[in-house]
């Protein structure tokens, strides 16, 4: 069986277990090359948003990456570059973890600051290029598990197990899933 299918199922299991949400009807931006995951999400009833024009032939909605991210309820493969674009309440899945037996992968440590495993931004756009300055103190780095991490200098607030909230501005909060949970 291809690795993509294993990764896809594992990612969907983790997202739904952490959030207790329904996939049907969600707008999900899939950033990066995850064709099996996008296909599974679509089959579960998600409205998948992809940047690859060929994805239209597989029933996905094709949008420029920035537009997809701005519309999405869930962003898979999210990076800090996407922050200024996100809707209030958006849920970010930093990257799809490697599949395989649990011990074979290299899941990030719980509570590790977001983005430290160097997932490259699809656009290469540095965070803050949109003029949104990192708010508040830049934090103290890796907080212990349970108190949330730090996202682009924003302090995270524990929401519940595996979910950290970040307030991007007035009335605008996004949530980051810890896919190693």
């Amino acid at each position, binding site marked *: 069986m291809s690795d993509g299918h294993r990764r896809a*199922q594992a990612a*969907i*299991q983790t997202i*739904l*277990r952490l*959030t207790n949400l*329904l996939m*049907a009807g969600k707008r999900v931006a899939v950033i990066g090359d995850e064709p099996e995951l996008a296909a599974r999400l679509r089959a*579960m009833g998600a409205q998948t948003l992809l940047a690859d024009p060929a994805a239209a032939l597989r029933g996905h909605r094709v949008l420029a990456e920035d537009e997809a991210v701005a519309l999405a309820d869930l962003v898979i493969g999210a990076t800090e570059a996407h922050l200024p674009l996100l809707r209030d309440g958006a849920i970010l899945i930093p990257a799809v973890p490697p599949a395989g037996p649990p011990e074979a992968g290299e899941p990030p440590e719980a509570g590790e600051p977001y983005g430290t495993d160097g997932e490259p931004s699809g656009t290469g756009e540095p965070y803050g290029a949109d003029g949104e300055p990192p708010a508040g103190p830049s934090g103290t780095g890796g907080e212990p598990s349970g108190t949330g991490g730090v996202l682009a200098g924003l302090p995270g607030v524990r*929401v519940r197990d595996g979910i950290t909230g970040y307030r991007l501005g007035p009335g605008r909060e996004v949530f980051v899933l810890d896919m190693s949970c």
Partner: protein
Amino acid sequence: MLADIRDASLRTRGLERIAWARRSMPVLNAIVGELDLTGRTVGLVLVLEPKTANLALTLRDAGADVIVTCPASETADDVAAALVSEGVAVLARSDASPERDRAFALRMLREGLDVLADDGSRVVRLAHAENLLGGLIGAAEETTSGLRPLRVMADRGELRIPVLAVNDARSKYLFDNVHGTGQSCVMAALDLTGLQLAGAVCVVAGYGYVGQGVARYARALGARVVVTEVEPFAALRAHHEGYEVRPLLDACPDADLVFSATGVAHTVTREHLRALRPGAVVAVAGGVPDEVEAGDVPAGVTVLAEGECVNCAAAEGNPIEIMDLSLAVQALAVDHLVRRGSTMAPAVHLLPEELDERVARLKLRALGIGLDTPSARQREFLGRGL
């Protein structure tokens, strides 16, 4: 205030989970201002988890004194603690024996309820058997399997209170039974087993609303799905939706995963279990006692969650957005019973159409989904009856 819970110190985690659920419950939020339950005592018998806790809080906010009970296997102790800290009476603990669960239900009934919201009609039936109906105006019943015995009681002239069939509201069963139970049971089975569904054979016994959902989500994740049925229209429907349809005994030897989705006892018999190959897994979606026959499970075969509904017993239950619909129906049913129950006959009643539709419209509004309006020409066409 009544409270018998396992550990009050768990409330913070419970409150976190309740608040997270609330974010995705716009319909319940929208109707809270429409309810008036001032001075009423409402008993809630629902799987005790973050979504149903939001129903308890909504009814409390509408002025009711709320008493919650729940069987041990379906009780989240952190949520119980959180509700108590919010002023809701809770008689539920995950370490309760069946005798204690029953005592909790009796204690709730003796408090003198105005309305009962039940799950599986366990407490409605207990109240009849123990002659504890008191001043109970009526009950709302959440599930398909809970309504069946109540309809039998009504046919025999034994039902003594009006019951609103929350399950039979379209804004409940079209979504909760299909998508809620479907997604959550498939995901719970995968979480519990580590099974890779891509390329696996998944057998779904029963193609009612729950079976349709289970089949759909198992297929979405790459399984080859086989449906088994006793009813010809359901079997034909499954066939036309692209599933293999075969007798259960014939399908068992191929199965990696079997879901029983019939809500009928003795669906998966010992003979079926013996026909499974080693490594096969059996789970119940929805569910009644003995849906999978207990005892001598063959070596190598696993029955998940001891044959109870796999998504309630082994995971966090139905998805939040779906329970927003079902629990909004419950809240409106409780309110309707308070307003009108005393004029309703002791029978199983449907929720008034306008309340059902109101839930669907509020959900569409929350999603930002617009509808077309029939034009004058269309209305004229329809009016001609041609």
